[in-house]
């Protein structure tokens, strides 16, 4: 009975800024009400990966030269970029997602809140899918800011391994979806429509890429691909589990993520073992052949 109100409260809490001093992605919706320049909103939400834009950031916590990964400073922009008006409507519409879901109604209400007309949702040619993509992109940016600014991974005393960091990040990203948990299966259904699959997958890849980068993965071999695929697969599977999870603090999902990640590691280890075994057998065969006088 009290679920809708509690969900709303939850949303409001997480959509409004806590007490951090500098404007962050989290604030997109509230920035509007504070009459901040729109360009800033645009920067904080859409330019999540591009550092060249004027992101209002105080002193960087780590010098960029040390934190450099294989992520380019001039990372190509996202496949979906929004204009100021689109961002305004979408951020306002996010407030209506917990009650109306990822639907055109939420978009319409967002447009009305932003001072537009009902007809103005024509600004978003993909309709509700634009809202979903915006949600994904903004939550991804939120995850990045949590690590880079709020010190998500630096909190505990001991230094985490890359594997542990990945799990923490996966769980953190899943927790960001909790407030729309009731609506998320609908969103997944929209994402699985044929015309939407390419963009949904590219967004999933962007998330996996971000998680690997934030976890400090430095691989430059074929495992670059396999690790990202593993992260993407674990995330996609846990996303489903999360929508059905009723345990306190997403404990079941957390265990699920840990199991799936262990499986992925085990599979990787098995593959490495098989490869090494084949390598040994091959070199043994070559050695045997040579001992028999074959010219190999």
């Amino acid at each position, binding site marked *: 009975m009290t679920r809708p109100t509690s969900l709303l409260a939850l949303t409001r809490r997480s959509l409004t800024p806590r007490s951090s001093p500098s404007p962050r992605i989290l604030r997109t919706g509230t920035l509007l009400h504070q009459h901040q320049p729109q360009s800033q909103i645009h920067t904080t939400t859409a330019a999540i990966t591009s550092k060249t834009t004027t992101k209002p950031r105080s002193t960087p916590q780590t010098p960029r030269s040390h934190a450099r990964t294989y992520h380019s400073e001039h990372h190509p922009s996202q496949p979906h970029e929004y204009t100021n008006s689109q961002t305004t409507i979408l951020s306002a519409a996010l407030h209506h997602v917990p009650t109306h879901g990822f639907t*055109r*109604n939420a978009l319409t209400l967002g447009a*009305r809140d932003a*001072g537009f*007309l009902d007809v*103005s949702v024509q600004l978003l040619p*993909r309709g509700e899918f634009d809202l979903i993509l915006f949600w994904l992109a903004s939550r991804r940016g939120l995850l990045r800011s949590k690590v880079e600014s709020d010190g998500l991974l630096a909190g505990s005393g001991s230094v985490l391994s890359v594997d542990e960091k990945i799990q923490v990040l996966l769980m953190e990203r899943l927790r960001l979806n909790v407030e729309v948990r009731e609506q998320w299966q609908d969103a997944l259904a929209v994402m699985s429509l044929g015309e939407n699959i390419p963009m949904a997958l590219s967004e999933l890849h962007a998330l996996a890429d971000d998680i690997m980068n934030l976890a400090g993965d430095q691989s430059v071999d074929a495992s670059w691909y396999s690790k990202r695929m593993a992260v993407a697969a674990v995330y996609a599977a846990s996303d489903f589990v999360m929508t059905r999870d009723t345990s306190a603090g997403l404990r079941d999902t957390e265990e699920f993520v840990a199991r799936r990640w262990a499986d992925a590691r085990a599979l990787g280890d098995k593959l490495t073992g098989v490869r090494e075994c084949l390598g040994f057998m091959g070199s043994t065969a070559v050695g045997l052949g040579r001992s028999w006088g074959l010219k190999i």
Partner: protein
Amino acid sequence: MSSRSLWRSLQTQTRRRLAVPETPYRCFSCTRQAQAQPPKPNADDERFTHFGFQNVPESQKESMVKTVFSSVASSYDVMNDMMSLGIHRLWKDHFVRTLNPGSALPSRDHDAAGRGWNILDIAGGTGDIAFRMLDHATNINHDTATRVTIADINPDMLAEGKKRSIQTPYYNTNRLDFMEGNAQSMPSIPSNSVDLYTVVFGIRNFTDKQAALNEAFRVLKPGGVFACMEFSKVDNALFNAVYKQWSFSAIPLIGQLVAGDRESYQYLVESIEQFPSQEEFRGMIQKAGFMIPGRGFENLTGGIAAIHKGIKPLN
């Protein structure tokens, strides 16, 4: 053999002007009569514009277009079906469905929007689009407050639309209005008063398209949408060849056989050819001050027609 000669006749007829003696009792070719009027003596300092493949003084285009559409008004629907093989209905349905007219959500206390849309359908004489939009608003969005004003420069087309509106539930209600007017200047419509401005297969006949776009920008409310469906450029070369053959050979022939008016349909296909490409027209919409959503246009049936949209920004 016979098929070859038919093929040849189809090809040559595009270039051949029929020498039909003008008779007082039957308007076989109204366009030619309009063109037969002697040009004004001060024509040399006048600006010229396209009328099909011909250049005509700007002052005359309006009346010539009027003549064309007066002559096709009665057979408009049959001809559209035959020329487009019925596809124009799919286009129009798609156009209306993507616009989704009507407010599905009730208006909240502080909302300015949500009390029905004010739609202006330009060049919508026969009511094709207007009735579809009203149907969509009523049946899909359960919005009985949305109203449409049909504006057309041509009283004959408006008469056709009025005749058809009798069959609809909107006849004689305040949801449907008819207005005779020129889209380049509509002083009777106040500024910032329209939610949605549509012009379907009409804008290529306008004498000054940019002026019409500017006028659309004026009458629309901030946040209002300009939506336009118009014939455009086919992007596939092979399909384009087939399409050109069809439009320059078959359409004037169908016009001659069905509507008894070849020249009007010759003008129709020529005016399609003269209309700017998708990208050029998008530039014109932007020039008028509109915001462009995404790519700005959507091609239909390989680019034979395209839907263009623009949104008037908030201040």
